[in-house]
């Protein structure tokens, strides 16, 4: 049976402060399973710095450094240098939110990636600044209601962060989502093995209070994001692009579900007009044109 092929050890403890049905914790649990004990985690200000617990207990079974919002990649670079100076070996992981990655943390990350700093950077993308009460970020999709786009929803499309990281020519870039934990597990294992430079994984992590859906639907929504083509699962290993999981079958637009299937389950999209939905569908189709170019280059 499938569960029995994966490690039963847990490095993420129950009784933490995350919301019921949180897609970020669902993913983090599997990331830590894949990384194992000899790892150090760096977390900038985000939901995770809160839900892992404050004092005197923490929900995470490996050493964690909490650091200022913009500084995650810089702090991780320091840890990598210190480990090297002391002759010690450990996997260094940055676990940051979308705000901490695509907006405020991007310069530290870009610098570290350009210097080929030896760590794994994972962005868990809940598509807004959730910890401070759902403000729009560069990763918020078109049309989504947030507390800073309260009436029409956001008028701009989502920033494509994985493509920015591909442009850094690092050995491994991948996308994943909470609803496919085994795909995520495999990608984190792969990232762990590719030592010597920066590896980047971007995880779409549905957030029940922020996206306004019933907590039991986290996995369903995560899978619908993939099956409608709103979120594409792929990996770029040493420059080689490859679609993974259900995304492999979706190059043909006929195979993709209409985006409405994904949008209609979420309160943040409940106000959308027909034109808005068509705009999102066009955006998805444009994203897939870019993907098909990357596929055909191989």
């Amino acid at each position, binding site marked *: 049976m499938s569960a029995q092929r994966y490690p039963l050890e847990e490095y993420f403890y129950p*009784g*933490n402060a*995350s919301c019921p*049905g949180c897609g970020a914790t669902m993913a983090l649990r599997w990331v830590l399973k894949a990384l194992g004990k000899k790892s150090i985690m760096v977390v900038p200000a985000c939901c995770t710095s809160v839900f892992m*617990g404050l004092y005197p*207990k*923490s*929900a995470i079974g490996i050493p964690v450094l909490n650091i200022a919002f913009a500084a995650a990649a810089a702090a991780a670079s320091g840890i990598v240098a210190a480990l090297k100076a002391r002759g010690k070996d450990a996997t260094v992981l940055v676990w940051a939110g979308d705000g901490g990655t695509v907006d405020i943390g991007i310069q530290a990350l870009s610098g570290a990636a350009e210097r080929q700093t030896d760590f794994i950077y994972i962005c868990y993308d809940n598509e807004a600044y959730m910890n401070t009460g759902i403000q729009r970020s560069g990763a918020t999709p078109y049309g989504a209601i947030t507390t800073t786009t309260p009436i029409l929803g956001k008028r701009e499309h989502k920033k494509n962060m994985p493509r920015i990281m591909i442009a850094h020519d690092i050995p491994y870039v991948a996308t994943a989502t909470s609803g496919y934990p085994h795909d995520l597990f495999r990608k984190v294992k792969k990232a762990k093995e590719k030592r010597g430079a920066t590896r980047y994984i971007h995880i779409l992590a549905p957030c029940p209070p922020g996206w306004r859906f019933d907590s039991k639907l986290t996995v369903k929504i995560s899978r619908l994001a993939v099956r409608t083509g709103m979120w594409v699962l792929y990996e770029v290993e040493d420059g080689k692009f490859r679609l993974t999981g259900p995304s492999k079958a979706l190059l043909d637009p006929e195979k993709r579900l209409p985006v409405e299937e994904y949008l209609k389950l979420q309160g943040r999209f409940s106000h959308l007009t027909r034109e808005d939905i068509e705009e999102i569908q066009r955006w998805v189709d444009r994203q897939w044109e870019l993907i098909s170019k990357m596929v055909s280059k191989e």
Partner: protein
Amino acid sequence: MKIVVKNYEWMKEIPPTPLSRPGPGSMGMTGRWRAERPVINYEKCKKCGMCWTYCPENAIVFSKDEGPRINYNYCKGCLVCVEECPYDAIKVEREVVEWEK
């Protein structure tokens, strides 16, 4: 809580820093948040581990022989396991239990 400050050698380099230790219950008994309770019907359960796979809280303990067991001290009642069980083996009950202090 009594705070003890010790003078370790490394403290000459780093000033005293708050340090938390890992363990369950960093937020207390989060089972108290629950409005509805998932209950496994072990006659229908095939021990596939899907509930364990998707539990965001790690509140389901899984063993190969005995299958899944829900830790109600911490289960927040998100009901992802109910949705994801392929054999429809988890049902939902209204939470009526009074938690002991």
